[in-house]
């Protein structure tokens, strides 16, 4: 829980420091900040939500991306070694924020008819419409937030577990008396290091996927058609 606060402090400190003295020709820190900000703003926000109305959502996407990124990367920092997002509560909270956001947005944009718009696809034969509507209700309003949160939580937990498993396994094998088991311990250690590097990739990618899906959901509730 302290880690959440630590991440908030870290992100705020870095970006406020990077953005405060906004020069036309950026320095190193400002350049790094701008590059990160630009990435979320343009390749996530602008490309997916659309040129017209992506502006109000940039802060949300930006905060989400870096909050998740930093909390994920805690899993790869020695001595911390615990991604905050591998606690399911964190993932539920973040996905819940997004869930509320896109439903409220949809209602704001289309009124109460938004629910009809969201669950009744156009161009479906009458005969199978009830079935399709049922599937759409489940997939949009139930599966979507669950998968959104659990994807983050599960990948982080699994990555955390597999590294810890490799570490514990190596420790166990290397401390055995039998000489034959020690090379196996080295093998698991090497595999653990490989998984560690792979985990860094996964952590960044999951932050990206979470933000991208947020943008896709927001775009979906702003769009005119299903």
């Amino acid at each position, binding site marked *: 829980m302290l880690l959440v606060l630590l991440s908030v402090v870290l992100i705020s400190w870095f970006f406020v420091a990077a953005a405060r003295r906004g020069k036309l020709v950026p320095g190193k820190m400002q350049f790094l900040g701008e590059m990160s900000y630009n990435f979320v703003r343009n390749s996530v926000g602008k*490309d*997916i939500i659309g040129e017209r109305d992506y502006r109000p959502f940039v802060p949300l996407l930006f905060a989400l991306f870096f909050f998740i990124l930093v909390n994920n990367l805690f899993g790869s920092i020695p001595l911390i070694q615990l991604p905050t997002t591998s606690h399911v509560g964190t993932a539920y909270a973040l996905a819940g924020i997004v869930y509320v956001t896109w439903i409220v947005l949809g209602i704001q944009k289309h009124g109460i008819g938004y629910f009809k718009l969201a669950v009744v696809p156009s161009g479906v034969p009458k005969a199978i419409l009830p079935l399709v509507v049922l599937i759409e209700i489940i*997939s949009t309003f139930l*599966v*979507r937030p*669950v*998968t*959104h949160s*659990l*994807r983050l939580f*599960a990948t982080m937990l699994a990555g955390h577990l597999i590294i810890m498993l490799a570490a514990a396994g190596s420790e166990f094998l290397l401390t055995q008396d039998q000489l034959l088991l020690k090379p196996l311990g080295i093998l698991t250690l090497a595999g653990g290091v490989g998984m560690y590097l792979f985990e860094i990739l996964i952590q960044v990618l999951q932050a990206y*996927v979470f933000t*991208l*899906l947020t*943008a*896709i959901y927001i*775009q979906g509730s702003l769009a005119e058609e299903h």
Partner: protein
Amino acid sequence: MEGNLNLVGYGLSAIGGAIGVGLVFAAYINGVARQPEAQRVLQPIAFLGLALTEALAILGLVFAFVL
């Protein structure tokens, strides 16, 4: 031998999701390789496909823990 058979079941169910995600990204890479300028259009579709496909694997995880 101790353990929970649910986890074996989850492992089996994850195979489907893995194949599905592989197919989605194979198609995405194919599309982008053939027409690099379509990348911006294809990317959200690919990730939406990823989300929908992975939903099944995640549901498997949920059931593995819940049941």
